[in-house]
């Protein structure tokens, strides 16, 4: 299974100012920047955004391998989309779109690197708590969000494995040999995850006020 979060980033514990910043503030900042980048879209602003995001990413001190992996995941789609936009609407638009995408993906990577999923779950639970009057269970919404975060890289990992399996059989150019197993394995993974959630009793409402008692009985 993939362990990565958004854009392949896994949480790395630390004590930087980004780590100490409340998860809600980081999430709000990312949302705000994303909205502003969409509203005021130009080659200049998106270049500034991508550069600043890169600077922020470098403050997380990724290793060379992590940085290379992030670059692959962050650049592929924006570059393809950007090239298409250059062809369709010119350089300015292409640079604006791809710059924005790279900037937002890098910021999302930074967020995932400096924020634990547990902290994120708490934040989302707090954010959606007012909606419990509409019948929503905040814990479940937060859990669904974290599953979604996890499922993106997991699906990419499945795609990679499927491609390797097709290559091993000399079928790398056969679209059916790629797409059909990918669809089946993705659904199977979703089913397995559902079973695991059921088996681990993770979807039932949380009890309040129960005392802590962890018992394992195991001393390996």
């Amino acid at each position, binding site marked *: 299974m993939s362990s*990565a979060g958004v854009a392949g980033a896994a949480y790395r514990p630390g004590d930087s100012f980004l780590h100490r910043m409340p998860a809600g503030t980081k999430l709000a900042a990312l949302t705000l920047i994303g909205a502003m980048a969409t509203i005021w879209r130009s080659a200049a602003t998106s270049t500034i955004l991508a550069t600043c995001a890169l600077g922020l990413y470098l403050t997380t001190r990724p290793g060379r391998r992590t940085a290379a992996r992030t670059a692959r995941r962050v650049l592929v789609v924006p570059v393809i989309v950007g090239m298409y936009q250059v062809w369709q609407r010119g350089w300015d638009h292409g640079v604006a779109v791809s710059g924005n995408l790279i900037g937002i993906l890098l910021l999302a990577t930074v967020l995932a690197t400096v924020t634990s999923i*547990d902290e994120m779950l708490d934040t989302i639970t707090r954010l959606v708590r007012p909606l419990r009057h509409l019948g929503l269970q905040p814990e479940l919404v937060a859990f669904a969000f974290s599953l979604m975060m996890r499922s993106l890289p997991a699906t990419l990992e499945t795609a990679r494995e499927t491609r390797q399996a097709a290559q091993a059989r000399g079928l790398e150019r056969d679209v059916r040999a790629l797409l059909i197993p990918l669809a089946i394995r993705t659904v199977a993974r979703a089913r397995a995850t559902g079973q695991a959630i059921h*088996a681990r009793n993770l979807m039932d409402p949380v009890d309040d006020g129960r005392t802590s008692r962890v018992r394992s009985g*195991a001393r*390996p």
Partner: protein
Amino acid sequence: MTTIEFDRARVDAVTAEGEVRILHDTTLRLAEHRVAVIGANGSGKSTLARLVNGLVAPTGGRVLVDGRDVAEHGRAIRRRVAFCFADPATQIVMPTAIEDVALSVRRRHRRPADRLAAATAVLHDFGLAGLEHRSVHALSGGQRQLLAIAGVLATDPAILVADEPTTLLDLRNARHIGDVLMTLSQQLVLVTHDLELAARCDRAILLEAGRVVADGPPAQVIDTYRRLP
């Protein structure tokens, strides 16, 4: 010790060939600390195990845990019965070891600091100290299976159902996981192909083509299994 009862429980499945009976009417009462379920692939072992916490619903009959019908008291039963899959990757849903165990203890610990402390203690208990922040992807197969077991036992269940927990492991890790399972205080229902491990249980059940064909002391049941055509 808790009691698991199968009262003429059966399971049918619809396949391309029509309806197939995966588990024939089964009546059992399991009150021993450690019960092994053995048999060939496709004999109905996993189906029997999945009935215990409601992952599979019986087509007929009932399954009771401490006198409560699994079909009627699903939520309460799930809190009593933990389930561990053969492939830990199926079961681990968070990116790092501590986050995965912390997810299990969220129910009991509202404060993040308490959650982390409880999760750290659980990981320590299972010999995973020092690996708290390691990506689950970077753990060895044995460590991942330990983490999966730690994750389900952190919810403090009364019963652990383990479906071939050593199948994907090498000999050393399989032995280690086997040792961990045998030291648990929880009642254990262990589906396994590892006959050495089955022999360490208090009782064994042999399934063949969806029927219980032997039930009793592990040595006798394993002997019967070995003599099956």
